[in-house]
């Protein structure tokens, strides 16, 4: 059985994955730039003005993909963490750690753009809307993960402790989400839901999808680039890493 596993996990060895990630990285980076470029152009110049919200609504072309990514990246981290804990693969934890800052970034963007959107629409920077509150808590979860993994010096402990924390978090996210939703209805806060506020035209939908795909490509590119640095740092004493440095390819 173990020989089959070795085949499966061939790409989970840093020595194999490092050059592979290096080859994939430019493709995703270029795709990200192109898609986000097109998406932004469409957001500002092609998508029609919303009849109810005016021009201000255009911020949702960033806000919504960022909010999607912020939640999705946490799930991907949970996937890698589970994989790492079960099969004890080094790469999994590195992937989770490489994704965390991007996840936190998107969460922050979602919050920030939410506040920017809220000012003209609701007349206030911050509304204790269920979704915004959940995003805020998600940001705390990302912060906790990053703080924990960077506080532990021993990388193997950091990997496994971080993985456990992400799994605990992922079990809690639905509970947190529903409790916030419940709290929100009880307190009769803002009942305006800006994503369902107006019907979307086809152009709006395409713009949103292109932006979302652009964010995807960006996330993958950022994670690959970060995972390469993590690998090089951790494996600095291994032969493959030293060879790369000697050849000037690192």
């Amino acid at each position, binding site marked *: 059985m173990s020989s089959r596993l070795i085949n499966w996990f061939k790409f989970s060895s840093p020595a194999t994955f490092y050059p592979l990630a290096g080859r994939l990285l430019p493709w995703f980076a270029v795709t990200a730039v192109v898609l986000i470029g097109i998406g932004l152009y469409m957001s500002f110049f092609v998508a029609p003005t919303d009849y109810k919200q005016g021009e201000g609504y255009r911020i949702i072309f960033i806000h919504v993909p960022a909010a999607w990514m912020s939640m999705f990246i946490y799930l991907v981290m949970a996937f890698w963490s589970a994989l790492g804990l079960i099969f*004890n693969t080094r790469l999994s934890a590195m992937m989770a750690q490489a994704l965390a800052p991007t996840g936190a970034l998107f969460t922050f963007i979602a919050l920030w753009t939410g506040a920017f959107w809220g000012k003209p629409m609701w007349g206030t920077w911050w509304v204790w809307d269920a979704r915004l509150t959940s995003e805020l808590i998600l940001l705390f979860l990302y912060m906790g993960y990053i703080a924990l993994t960077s506080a532990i*010096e*021993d*990388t*193997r402990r950091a990997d496994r402790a971080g993985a456990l924390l992400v799994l605990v978090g992922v079990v809690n996210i639905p509970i947190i989400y529903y409790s916030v939703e419940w709290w929100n209805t009880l307190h009769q806060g803002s009942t305006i839901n800006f994503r369902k506020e107006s019907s979307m035209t086809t152009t709006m939908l395409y713009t949103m999808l292109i932006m979302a795909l652009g964010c995807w490509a960006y996330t993958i590119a950022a994670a690959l680039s970060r995972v390469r640095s993590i690998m090089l740092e*951790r494996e*600095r*004493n291994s032969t493959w890493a030293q060879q790369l440095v000697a050849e000037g390819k690192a």
Partner: protein
Amino acid sequence: MLQVHQLSCMRGDRRLFADLDLTLAPGELLYVHGHNGSGKTTLLRALCGLVRAEDGYVSWHGQDIAELREDYARDLLYLGHKNGIKGDLTAVENLRVCGVLDGFPLTERAAWDALGRIGLDGHEDLEAKVLSQGQQRRVALARLLVNRAPLWILDEPFVALDVAAVALLQQVIRDHVAGGGLVVLTTHQAVELTEGTVKQLKLGWRD
């Protein structure tokens, strides 16, 4: 039978030992020695399953200890650098709690007896924190007298003990081995026990 298969352990990014193989049969004593930092404690902790090996595995009666878990723990007695006793509990209370945790609950009477035999007469119901280093070590070692686990893994058991206690402990270990038990131990002190026909394992490369 305790077996180690291709075991490698790291601390930080330093490899302590690699591809270690060894077998310990009932009635055998393994003396692990090597300089400071050669990985003796890490090896012992890996044998217990407290440390995850970088590579390889440890088996007990042919089964991976990571799968046996509690079944292995029942057969194992580990004594580390730390005594594993509570300063705020008396010697008797400590020993009884240890007994329960080890899976060999003992009566108050039996605890007093064991502490008497290890040389703690008159100190049985004192809080452990008022005892000396050597006496605290004796409380921890009293576990050996009341425990029927076949495999003992002892990390520096002779530290802080006086001559009489060292002799007593050696006798206890000898009896255990003679009775078909397995013992893995490290020590920096030269004791008779480690001379002669015992199995030896030397870690580290310099000496």
